[in-house]
């Protein structure tokens, strides 16, 4: 059997195994620490290069080091939204319980990343623009994305019945992901209307390698953090959802016996 076929079989079999909460729980028990370790390794590496090794920027001085945190977090806020919407779509189309759990558990993490991107962006903007908030296209898009996350979490907690709440949240996530690019372009046009393209050009025309390397490490590191935090909160959610089933009782009792 050619390798491609076997990879595809492996992927589809894990996909189906992940479909059942019990399988997910056993798989996540050994993948979560792996994600945690990779996150630590990559982000420490990125931090060391970003804070110690990378030379100060000729224009912004050392304040540009915030870039190694602001940019990965901003990318993650969008990445988490897309993952949340795809999981929602999978849940709605193929009725996979676990896909809804991914959507529900990713929402708070995505909202945290977005809020973080806003905070670090405005703090970084202080030395450059002199104020904490400027209606810059990217910051405004992040602000709207934060409201979208709040909308999704508000919908989930609005319904009493858990199953309806999950499906409604998934549907809103899918609708949101269609509208996010429209919001992005309308804000882009709107901010150019107010003042010309801002001087706040992220990372300059071409990032020198000693700046690009830590940024890449931090970005990938944060992705693994997302995986780690997501799996942790999904484990808690799965135990809570399947509280009445036998396998949960076994896992809980034998762990502490």
């Amino acid at each position: 059997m050619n390798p491609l076929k076997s990879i595809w079989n492996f992927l589809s079999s894990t996909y189906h195994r992940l479909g059942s909460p019990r399988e997910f729980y056993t798989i996540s028990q050994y993948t979560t620490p792996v994600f945690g370790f990779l996150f630590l390794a990559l982000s420490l590496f990125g931090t060391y290069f970003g804070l110690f090794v990378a030379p100060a920027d000729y224009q912004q001085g050392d304040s540009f080091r915030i870039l190694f945190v602001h940019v990965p977090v901003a990318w993650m806020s969008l990445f988490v939204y897309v993952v949340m919407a795809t999981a929602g779509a999978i849940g709605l189309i193929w009725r996979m319980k676990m896909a809804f759990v991914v959507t529900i558990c990713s929402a708070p993490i995505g909202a945290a990343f977005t809020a973080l991107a806003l905070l670090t962006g405005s703090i970084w903007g202080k030395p450059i623009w002199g104020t904490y908030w400027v209606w810059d296209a990217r910051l405004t898009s992040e602000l709207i994305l934060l409201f979208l996350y709040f909308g999704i979490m508000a919908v989930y907690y609005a319904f009493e019945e858990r199953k309806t709440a999950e499906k409604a949240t998934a549907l809103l996530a899918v609708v949101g992901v269609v509208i996010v690019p429209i919001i992005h372009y309308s804000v882009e046009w709107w901010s150019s209307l107010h003042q010309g393209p801002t001087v706040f050009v992220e990372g300059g025309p071409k990032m020198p390698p000693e700046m690009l390397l830590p940024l890449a490490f931090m970005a990938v590191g944060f992705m693994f953090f997302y995986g780690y935090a997501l799996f942790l909160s999904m484990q808690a959610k799965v135990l809570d959802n399947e509280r009445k089933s036998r396998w949960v009782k076994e896992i809980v009792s034998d762990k502490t016996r």
Partner: protein
Amino acid sequence: MKNTLVLYFQREWQLMFRNTSSMIQPLVFFIIIALLFPFSLPAEGALLQKIGGGVIWVSAVLATMLSLESMFHSDYQDGTLEQMLIHPRSLPLAMLGKALAHWTSTGLVLTAFSPILCITFNIPNEQIWVLFSGLMLGTPSLSLIGAIGAALTVTLRRGGVLIAIVILPLYIPILIFGAGMLSQSAQGLEVASQLYALAAILMLSLTLTPFAIAGALRVTIN
């Protein structure tokens, strides 16, 4: 066999004429909100003119949003919504009919009335036309996208607030292009690009939102 869209549009019209309050309330609400601003900015003719477009657009958005809850509420209460869900006729087409009928009772009425409000904001005459065309193109998308929120929250007792949280961020592109047209035409620039953008958003919502509304109803009614 009458087309589903026409059938549901006519049904909504018939129901709206039976209780005309659903036509008048959004209009009165729209006027009151818009007129609050001149009271809060005494004798600032120039300033009023500058913010007039934005104020009228925000009042139109708020008036539409507040009338969204009634779109599915009465059908859900008396069981007709469930009959629609299990009827062989295409639900998305039916929802398109309902949303467009809702637009005629809110968006269209507000747009028809907006020139009068422009006068109170002493917006020059040529810009009244710009605002009118923007509202005409934008308000249907407001009703269509808002219908998704209405469908999602139809089973909730206090769904109104949730609709605002969920739907207002989705209205931002329409608001940006709509209100932006006024400031562009004030500087004498061309507003064609904003009209194209609003028309594009309208086409998108006409084709995509009915499926989202039908999906939302199937998800929440069980």
